[in-house]
């Protein structure tokens, strides 16, 4: 069935028939009201914390 109009083009230039995918995209268009979504941090990068702890541990001894 869908072969009848199953085309990825917006409009058949010869017949003027609008494919329903293009029509659905046009008539279904979402409201234009963007909202920012800042990317969250989920993985803990342990290296800087570990290095800072090591430095705190070693620094007094090295100074001595």
């Amino acid at each position, binding site marked *: *069935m*869908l072969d*009848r*109009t*199953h085309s*990825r083009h917006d*409009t058949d230039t010869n017949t*003027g*028939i*609008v494919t*329903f*995918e293009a*029509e*659905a*995209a046009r*008539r*279904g*268009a*979402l*409201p*234009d*009201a*963007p*909202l*920012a*979504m*800042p*990317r*969250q*941090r*989920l*993985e*803990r990068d342990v290296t800087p914390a570990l290095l800072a702890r090591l430095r705190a541990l070693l620094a007094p001894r090295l100074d001595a």
Partner: protein
Amino acid sequence: MSRTGPTRARAVALGASLALAAGAFTLFFAQRQTGGLWVEFARSLLILMATFWLAWGASQAMLGLWPGRAVAPRRAEPKGRCVILVPVHEEDPRATFARIAAMDEALSETPQAGLFDFAILSDTRSPHGAAREAAWYLALLRARDAEARIFYRRRTSNHGRKAGNIEDFIKTSGAAYEFALILDADSLMSPETIIEMARRMEGEPRLGLLQSLPGVIRAGSLFGRAMQFSAALHSPVFARGVARLQGETGPFWGHNAMVRVHAFAESCALPDLSGPPPFGGHVLSHDYVEAALLARAGWIVRLDEDLAGSFEEGPENILAHAKRDRRWCQGNLQHARLLTAPGLRRWSRFVFLQGILAYVSSLFWLGFLATSILAPALRAEPDYFPLAGWSFPVLPPNETTRTAGLIIGVLGLLILPKLLIAIQAIRSGRATGFGGAWRLMVSTLAEIAMSSVTAPIFLMFQTRSVLQVLSGRDGGWPASARGEGRLSLFESWQASRWISLIGLGGLIASWRLSPELVGWLLPIAGPMIAAPLVIWATSLPCRALFSVPSETCPDPILARQDEALDRWAPLTDADAAPPRQEPQHA
């Protein structure tokens, strides 16, 4: 709705579960056979882990059964606009859009009609599926005269799967709405429930996410109806227990939940995890993570189990269930990466751990069964005269006694909560919706019998899923198996012959190594050997058992969905979207 302090509930549930697990360990280890100390220790440890998991589940039911003080949630007349999001991925558009038509029609008859829009968010990739969606969307627009109220967009990239799909919507249109009701393609909700959720969101400005408890509807097979019955009878009690445990750090199950859009936007953009799938890449079980992130940002995440009129459809056979469970298994095990995520609440971390345990516990049980069969071969010969100068033999503890004790304990933890829930339903009058007290008890016993037979089969499917994930196999993103009901015996055999072989192998090994265990192993090995038959038989239609309130006193939204489907039934895909002549412009 009842609210008790979650700290006390957590302490009680954790304390009881740990005590039972420790008790099982002590009793099992104290009755150990001579020799093979490490094997006995390992078995006892496996019993400890598995008992903890069972006791934890039972304690949630007990908490749910415990009478609590009813506290009405804060409510206010909704003013903010709400979008109802329907993410779809290779779904049947006729069935999905009939649900939308039903909900839109029902909402349009309420005074709050102007507050609600729908957005169908498609991640469908197949050209044929995309074309069908577009055609049926146009049919939906015609049927509901819904332009600029029911939106449809199909993404060009599936990045982030469902979570990425919703994120894409919020980045495009999120500022237009105060609230978003997130649904699945098979979700159906009554307008009263949707509006009540908006009232509760409006009334509590700190509420970031409100989860309803979806009931399963429209099951037709024996397996599907047993699940539907269990969801209707047991889930509200378990959910009340969960709500008491979780308090304001509640769950998100990915659908049938309302979010405050700006809270969700500021907290829930998920990053890809480093490394390849299954442990890296997109966050698969994104809902748990989003709940944890909302809680991390200080928002309340709450499960209101008293909200009726929230529905979904469930898998119709064991194979469809196992397919969905494979996806959930990978998602839950991936949460191991997030146990140390910065800033999460302790309870959120525990919830991740709980999800991991839910799947890993299958390895504990299988490990226990395997070591039990092998233990006699690893043991030293018993010493009947261990004490010098003592002329009477000292007999080693009887394995049968231990096994019987174990089985009674397991059955108690699994069955007792179900029986108590049935009794409470009869006493409270809730049994009427299940066809009355007598039918409720018959259905309860049938459900217990059926879940006992299917448990070893699920144990095997789950074990396979865990091992696949641990060995690095990514399950991908298969389309959901909806409406896949009746299976042929051949299909069942093809999908489960490996379970039969393992069951048979285990029974033969037990007969050779520890014949005294054969009788005790039969309730596990028997269903495994008969897995193809069990899978086939439980996929057959069944009407005699498992009456539920959604059948005996159905919500009107179900009838509306039927009417929408009936109206569309004679239409072919071509009728849904007849070709249209575009006006010719000069």
